[in-house]
């Protein structure tokens, strides 16, 4: 059936122009964008398979060297062939913990971002479509959430509930759902007043049809580019909480808590311990900067940052 349809379509230039797929130029990245895409893909692979590839378990203590001699003090060892990035404050392999930590940090942030999107889009579109009162109530409540600095909301909630991975996910997901709500609502309000929605209404379609067939497809693309920004914010937020000792709890490794745990090693300089602090910090930074540059690159081709080049 599908093949027959395709056959019927005349292959003319006019058809090409009508095509729904965005122009190819949109995803053409500059070399630095490609490089950053490489970094992100690298971290995704580490997040998925790092725990299998890592030389040690995240909670494994390095007690003896390769020939079986016991270490006097395995903490804050300098890099050797056995431990490529040295050991942390209680003698665990830093490289392995970073590889395991990728899964925790990226995994939690990713799930939290998805949650933020589901809740934010659902409420945002509802507010735009469902009418004045629902909109007013939802918008005011969201304003309350946004009137907290996010780190304060985090601190207060964790003081009450304690910290665990599910709580971290729900907490950051809900906090950042507020900003997704605002974007989704604003975008849907633009769509809702268009003629084609009015036609659908006149045809007698229900609210569900309008949301799923008219609004959602039209706001999907701008929301997708926003996903990366939201992901960065959530990575930074969760890392900050972990850094404060209020995020992911030991012995699970996580980049933010690794920085905190090994902070005392910083004073020893590179010969002992500083790498244990710097490596996870660099891991977070490389990931967030890379995502940021990719977004910048995409929006530059989209005309987003053209305003900077104008005048």
């Amino acid at each position: 059936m599908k093949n027959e349809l395709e056959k019927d379509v005349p292959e003319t230039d006019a058809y090409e122009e009508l095509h729904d797929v965005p122009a190819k130029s949109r995803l053409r990245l500059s070399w630095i964008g490609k490089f950053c895409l490489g970094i992100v893909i690298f971290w995704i692979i580490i997040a998925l398979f790092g725990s299998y590839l890592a030389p040690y378990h995240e909670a494994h203590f390095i007690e003896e060297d390769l020939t079986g001699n016991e270490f006097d003090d395995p903490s804050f060892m300098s890099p050797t062939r056995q431990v490529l990035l040295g050991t942390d404050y209680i003698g665990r392999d830093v490289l392995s913990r970073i590889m395991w930590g990728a899964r925790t940090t990226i995994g939690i942030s990713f799930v939290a971002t998805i949650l933020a999107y589901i809740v934010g889009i659902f409420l945002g579109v509802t507010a735009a479509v469902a009418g004045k009162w629902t909109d007013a109530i939802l918008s005011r409540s969201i304003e309350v959430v946004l009137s907290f600095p996010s780190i304060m909301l985090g601190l207060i909630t964790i003081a009450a509930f304690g910290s665990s991975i599910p709580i971290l996910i729900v907490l950051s997901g809900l906090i950042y759902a507020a900003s997704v709500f605002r974007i989704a609502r604003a975008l849907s309000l633009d769509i809702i007043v268009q003629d084609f929605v009015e036609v659908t209404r006149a045809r007698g379609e229900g609210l569900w049809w309008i949301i799923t067939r008219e609004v959602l497809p039209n706001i999907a693309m701008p929301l997708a580019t926003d996903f990366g920004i939201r992901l960065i914010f959530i990575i930074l937020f969760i890392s900050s909480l972990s850094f404060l000792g209020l995020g992911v709890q030991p012995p699970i490794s996580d980049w933010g808590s690794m920085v905190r745990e090994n902070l005392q090693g910083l004073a020893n300089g590179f010969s002992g311990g500083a790498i244990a602090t710097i490596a996870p910090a660099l891991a977070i930074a490389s990931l967030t900067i890379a995502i940021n540059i990719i977004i910048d690159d995409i929006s530059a081709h989209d005309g987003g940052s053209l305003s900077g080049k104008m005048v």
Partner: protein
Amino acid sequence: MWIMAARRILIGIFLIWAVSAFIFLITQILPGDAAELILGQTATDASLEALREKLGLNQAWYTQYLNWIYGLVTGDLGVSVAGGSTIADLIKFRIGNTLFVGGIVAVISIPLSLSLGLTAAMMPGSMIDRVITATTLGLIAVPDFFVAIFLILILAVGLGWFPSVSYLRGNEGFLKSLYVLTLPIFTLVLVVSAQMTRMTRAGILNVMSSPYIEMAILKGIPRRTIILRHALLNSIGPIINVIALNLAYLVSGVVIMETIFAYPGLAKLMVDGVQTRDIPLVQACGMIFCTTFVVLILIADLATIVSNPRLRHPK
């Protein structure tokens, strides 16, 4: 204008109320109550009852809420669960430290970032602009503690110029305190200025793309004159807005900074409170930070209203 401003102020008051309600709510949904938290699981029923009586936990929730609000306003914040000293005393000692650092950071970063933002906006696409844009983007994209760690590594560990822990006894002179606090101040200045510079640049470029500026360009007026004479005055509203918003960002920056440098400020007090689950302390500190945040954002919005003639004289 007055109606708009008054409405905005009313919204601000509503938000502060909502924040207080949320922070209060936390205690109500806690498993168990503050008395159990203080005395631990081994406490007898009688002693629990006595403590509840003393803390007023037997009253209805709305009485508790009103008492708490009354306490906040009159400065009677209750007793810290952990230390036993009154929260008001703890906060009084710490809040000065935080304000000291915050004030110095504001004094340095506001002029710095305004001039950087202006420079970048004056020659968009130039080398200077690209360097400024790239650096600030990098600073925003990394965690605050990342900046702090590198400053410690270079300036404290590598070069040994400044101490990496900012402990003040309280009897140092101004210059000595400033020296001890160099790294935390430097960190915060970098983090806050990065945001502010970008927003200033964007604000001015936004004005620059309006039709009247285009007219001025077409008339052949030099770019520098256009920015300084035409664009700058019209960007004052947005710029005040940017300043207030960034002072609000300081609220979150200060939490990380005080932890990493072990600086005895209000945010460190709060983080310690969260770790020991000292709920009354967390509530009081949270209320102070959040109120400051709401008020700063209110100022930002009011600045926008006051500085915009179209909002000042609505048709």
